């Protein structure tokens, strides 16, 4: 298991413990707690949830923000949570008696682990918080706090926040304690260069120190820790119109990086006119199947040689990166050949079963058809003429599947697995003779690039899926329009679109202003605006008869956003390795509905 596989579920699990305790979902807590071996700390994570459950959100957030802006943030966080643990415990234990046991266990574990290396690192770094923490756990275990220094003793006593206090009382008391013991004044913002530097350093140090509260902002898992990144896209600062030369440069850049376009110039501009309208005005859409011309020198659309010295190096770098990624994808698959072949066998079996089980011929008694000898007497004695059996074959399902993979930079970490899983799905569907089209989408320099790996009739081309690589942004709304366009070629009556997404549309090109729609200024294509746009594109697709389903991977994206965009037609998979299983289940459900 790689370190990524280990980290993400642990974090998601910690989040779930906090959500369960808070009785509320979807929010990002300001803190999380992990044990020394990187697993969620059940007791402390629950405490974080209870604090959310019992105390006014704004007051607590203000308290966390204030201590977080201090130079002594680490110490203050530690001290604050010693107090909060006490009051949240006292409050919750009335409803949840098992909590005293969990608290006791937490205290025992604290002392059991005090001689481990990472604990000693922590002790060395912040002996005050450690001393106060061990005093608290000592009292939990029924011992003396063990503090000698009178200053520390008094501080410890002040940290027995009462379960009867409300959020305001807690915050006021906390500010007063910090002021009296540390001369901390909440009103004085400490936004110095030193603080910035300190916080920057802090974010590195907390990540490696387990078994304690951590601010979640410091827990951001590096997306490209494996060094897989090819292009690190930055939000474009240039929101204005581009010159014709810049536009041309961008087009050539996209063509060189991603391959020749699927359509000629005339067709391309017709499609662009059709699709890049409304909220996508000013954007471009680029369809390609990744083909490259022998020498990469002639531009098919204009017939000219692409001249772009400024980005030549960049392009070469990208192509090299893409090639290296394709090699990595293939190697990954080959190394796990047995596993993936099993996946293909299982998925194709699942699809075949669904296809076989549901279309059962129904036999109905009728006035014509095949004579049922055992019923002849009924005609004679009962005048019942229905002594024949008619056989009605249910129609074979007539459907095609489109698999659309998010290829934005957020996927950098799992490119090999996505490629392999997509291959598994395409191969399995091909084995069942179901037409499938696999595409990926990403946005770069204002272009939403839709890369088609294999078309409906290209059963033998599914190996090209291994050319998948991730980069740039994702303008989901425009990509869905593009998918709708490509799906027009489907040979089947029913069309299914399965999209791998994080339900968080995000592009560097803004949504143009729309005075009639009440938006006099242009808006960023992200957050609420992005979700709205994507959800309206999903609705449009559904209206045109396409069934759209989404697969969310791991902790990326919120379920709430996905629900708003895709309704109930989405599933969250914890690990991208489950992609083919999730698609299998989706397909099975849909096949059942076709009958």
């Amino acid at each position, binding site marked *: 298991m790689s370190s990524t596989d280990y980290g993400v579920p642990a974090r998601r699990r910690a989040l779930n413990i906090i959500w369960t305790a808070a009785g509320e979902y979807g929010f990002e807590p300001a803190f999380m707690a992990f044990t020394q071996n990187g697993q969620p700390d059940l007791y402390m994570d629950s405490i974080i949830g209870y604090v959310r459950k019992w105390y006014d959100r704004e007051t607590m957030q203000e308290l966390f923000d204030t201590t977080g802006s201090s130079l002594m943030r680490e110490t203050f966080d530690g001290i604050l949570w010693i107090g909060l643990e006490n009051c949240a415990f006292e409050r919750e234990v009335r409803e949840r008696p098992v909590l005293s046991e969990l608290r006791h266990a937490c205290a025992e574990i604290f002392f059991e682990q005090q001689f481990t290396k990472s604990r000693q690192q922590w002790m060395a770094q912040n002996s005050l918080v450690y001393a106060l923490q061990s005093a608290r756990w000592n009292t939990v275990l029924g011992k003396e706090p063990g503090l000698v220094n009178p200053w520390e003793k008094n501080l410890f006593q002040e940290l027995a926040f009462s379960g009867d206090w409300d959020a305001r009382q807690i915050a006021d008391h906390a500010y007063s304690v910090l002021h009296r013991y540390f001369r901390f004044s909440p009103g004085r913002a400490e936004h110095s260069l030193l603080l910035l530097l300190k916080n920057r350093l802090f974010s590195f140090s907390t990540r490696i120190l387990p078994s304690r509260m951590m601010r979640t902002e410091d827990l951001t898992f590096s997306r490209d820790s494996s060094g897989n990144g090819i292009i690190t896209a930055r939000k474009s600062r240039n929101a204005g119109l581009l010159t014709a030369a810049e536009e041309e440069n961008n087009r050539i850049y996209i063509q060189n990086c991603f391959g020749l376009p699927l359509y000629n110039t005339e067709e391309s501009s017709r499609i662009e006119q059709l699709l890049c309208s409304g909220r996508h005005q000013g954007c471009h859409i680029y369809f390609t199947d990744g083909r490259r011309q022998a020498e990469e020198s002639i531009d098919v659309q204009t017939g000219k040689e692409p001249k772009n010295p400024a980005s030549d190096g960049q392009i070469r770098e990208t192509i090299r990166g893409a090639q290296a990624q394709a090699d990595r994808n293939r190697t990954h698959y080959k190394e796990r050949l047995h596993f993936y072949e099993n996946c293909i066998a299982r998925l194709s079996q699942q699809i075949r079963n669904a296809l076989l089980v549901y279309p059962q011929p129904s036999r109905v008694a009728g006035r014509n058809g095949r004579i049922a000898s055992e019923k002849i007497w009924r005609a004679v004695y*009962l005048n019942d003429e229905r002594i024949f059996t008619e056989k009605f074959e249910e129609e074979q399902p007539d459907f095609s599947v489109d698999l659309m993979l998010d290829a934005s930079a957020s996927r950098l970490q799992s490119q090999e697995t996505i490629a392999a899983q997509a291959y598994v799905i395409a191969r399995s569907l091909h084995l069942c003779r179901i037409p499938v089209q696999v595409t990926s989408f990403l946005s770069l320099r204002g272009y939403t690039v839709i890369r088609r790996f294999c078309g409906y009739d290209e059963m033998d081309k599914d190996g090209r899926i291994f050319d998948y690589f991730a980069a740039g942004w994702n303008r989901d709304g425009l990509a869905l329009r593009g998918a709708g366009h490509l799906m027009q070629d489907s040979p089947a009556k029913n069309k299914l679109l399965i999209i791998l997404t994080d339900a968080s549309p995000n592009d560097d090109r803004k949504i143009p202003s729309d005075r009639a729609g009440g938006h006099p200024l242009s808006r960023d294509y992200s957050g609420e605006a992005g979700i709205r746009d994507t959800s309206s594109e999903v609705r449009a697709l559904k209206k045109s008869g396409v069934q759209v389903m989404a697969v969310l991977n791991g902790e990326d994206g919120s379920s709430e956003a996905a629900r708003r965009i895709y309704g109930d037609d989405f599933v969250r998979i914890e690990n991208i390795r489950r992609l083919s299983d999730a698609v299998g289940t989706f397909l099975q459900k849909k096949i059942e509905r076709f009958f």
Partner: protein
Amino acid sequence: MLDFLREEHVDEHIIKGIEDFRREHPSPEGALSVRPRYVYYGKEVWEQAAEALLCGENLLLAGSKATGKNVLAENLAALFGRPSYNVSFHINMDASYMIGTDTFRDGQVVFRPGPICQCAVQGGFCILDEINMARNEALAVLHSVLDFRRVINVPGYDTIRVHDAARFIATMNYGYAGTRELNEALASRFMVIHMPEITQENLEKLLRREFPDMNRQFTGQFSGLFADIDRKCRNGELTPKVLDLRGLLDAIRLIRAGLPPRSALDMGITNKTFDDYEQSLVRDIISSRISPKADRNTIFH
């Protein structure tokens, strides 16, 4: 059952209506509906269902797992004092299974009535369980039974009139594997109740009734456990496989028999999913509610 409705503060006018119905249609000799194993909690649903049945309507109870569709259906039959007939629907269900078929008796071919026919004649309550598992074409024979005509046409035999006291209560779980869309013609012949998930308060009542010897503190913890899982399912963090009320009740029964609570809950709930990660989430919820040291003696008195 009527006393139970009064305890639940169901409208007195409805209770009176049920008493009148029972007087008007006394239970057939020896065909009394058996006393239901569980009782349904939920005043509003009780009132909707009872009022609809009093007005001669048929009911379709739609809802997800653990919403008590079958419990309510059985309860209604017992409440109205009518015999209940249960027909479990499946993909190969056909008219002869529901209505009846021919058989030999005393050297003659005679009609052997199916459950729907029996129910129609006896004036029973017919529970059409998981009605959307069957093909819509097969269900067409029910149309005349369910609408104003209230007759069953058996080809070759006489037309059977549906007894005045007979009612049909269908249940369906939308979205289960193997279920289909119910066609409009059939759906229009039912009054539909969307069964809400059991509330924590009602689940506590259920647990107290089912396990009167359980310590009060633990009824709160077990119902809270179920509510926590329910919330997690609704937020897409868990699949509904682990939202299993039957499983919870069975697990508590095992605990009462002496099995350690964690093992029993694993068998009844956690192991219903085969995904390790989901199992770990469920175990976290259990850990935050039930102590590993708890046993039969601490949970029951």
